[in-house]
């Protein structure tokens, strides 16, 4: 019996992804066939369909693409509001990530394009900080 591939990725890269975020980094997977970059939580390349990836650790710095300031928060975030939830673009990579950014009161505090970085991962998910 012939296997399609021996290089099947792990069932879940989330523990490693979380460890990387705690260190201020983003664990990504680069498709070895077409070079498309993905967050490490995918199993197949969205561009070419391949499942051969190389892990790469990216520096978790970048710029705000868009965000909101949450004033009516979901459960668990009541004591943290107002805070921002942010979509950021990672540095020089064509890759975005989103996360929780504490202590943002008003839009002037966080113009689009503001430099931000990943600083951790806890019960608030990916945690970001203004640079």
């Amino acid at each position, binding site marked *: 019996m012939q296997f399609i591939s021996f290089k099947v990725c792990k069932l879940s890269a*989330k523990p490693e992804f979380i460890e990387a975020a705690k260190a201020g980094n983003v664990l990504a997977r680069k498709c070895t066939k077409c070079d498309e970059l993905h*967050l490490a*939580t995918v199993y197949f390349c969205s561009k070419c369909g391949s499942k051969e990836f190389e892990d790469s650790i990216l520096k978790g710095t970048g710029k705000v*693409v*868009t*965000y*909101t*300031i*949450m*004033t*009516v*928060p*979901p*459960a*668990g*975030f009541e004591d*943290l509001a107002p*805070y921002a*939830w942010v*979509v950021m673009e990672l540095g020089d990579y064509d890759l*975005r*990530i*989103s*996360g*929780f950014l504490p202590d943002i009161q*008003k*839009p002037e505090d966080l113009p*689009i394009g503001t430099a931000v970085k990943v600083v951790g991962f806890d019960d*608030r*998910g*990916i*945690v970001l900080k203004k640079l």
Partner: protein
Amino acid sequence: MEKVCVLGAGSTKYGKLEDSISDITVQASVDAIENAGIEPKEIQAGYISNVFGVADKQVHLGPVVMSNLGISECPSLSIESACGSGSVSFREAFANVAAGFYDAVLVTGTEKVTHTGTDWTTTYFSYCSDFFYEGQAGASFPGLFASMARAYLHEFDATEEDLASVAVKNHENGFLNPKAHFRKKITIDDVMNSAVVASPLKLYDCCPFSDGASSVILCNEKFAKEHSKDYVKVIGSGRGGSPAALQGREHLTTIPSTKIAAEAAFKMAGITSKNVDFAEVHDCFTVAEVVDTEDLGFFEKGTGATAARNGETKLNGSISINPSGGLKSKGHPIGATGVGQIVEVFEQLTGQSGERTVNDAKIGLTQNFGATGASCAVHIFQSV
């Protein structure tokens, strides 16, 4: 492929309802059966869309509904696709009737959540997002759409007042709809002065959490003709998907699944957006309606907000958008909404929509998505 028709439609009022989820689901189904002029025993399958039945102590709603209709032997299933559950369920029913498996089926969408309170609903609705990246990090649905709104206002020449005009227009339409959750006209100032929920979205940019159920009878054309009653043809059906998380999307001012679903539906119908007389679109937040009307091809990208402000989407404007009042004013019982849109189109195309009638309408479109548009279905209907 069999031609598929909507033979009848029914709905409860949308809003805060006292009756249980099973009761409202049965009520809407009975309304649709009577409106279609059929006997329950003519129904060959039931499609029930629902998301949070667990909140009212009843999941596996299909057999409960069928038993109450006296047809416990009839097969049924439940479908969950967040806020897009209703249209996805309709699509599955459509596909099965088109394929010839069934002559006539019941499609009922339902939701009952208002008794749980805003905290519960905000939290549980956030489970419809890509939770690892969004809900877990404190993003609610208003927050996710607020992020799209900020991107839209940043990218295009549009203002928060332009977005507010969508809410004002939908409340004008909902004022004329006896089954709407809110029958109250509002002004742009009312929207602008309402409390900020997730900036830049304010309370009146957001649709309410509603209870309600809507139902339609779907059948093949032979069955419809045998029942010699007004019916409406389903001429187009399409579905599409988008990256589940906003971070996975190249543009935050468009919803890919809408475009994919619309392209498929228009192709099947052999028409374009220019042939559509009115549309019921997914306006869970004001910005969503603006993005929808652009993605469906009614307006160029970036011009939808101005078009709304200029009154082009009003009842009997250049394209009537959400004559029912939309999710904003008619209400948003999430499992029912997609079916409710189809109820509105059926009523419009069969002369049952009273004061909110779109003049001389022959072709109506529905667009209903789940979450931030991670899933979407578009349907196109034509009067006979």
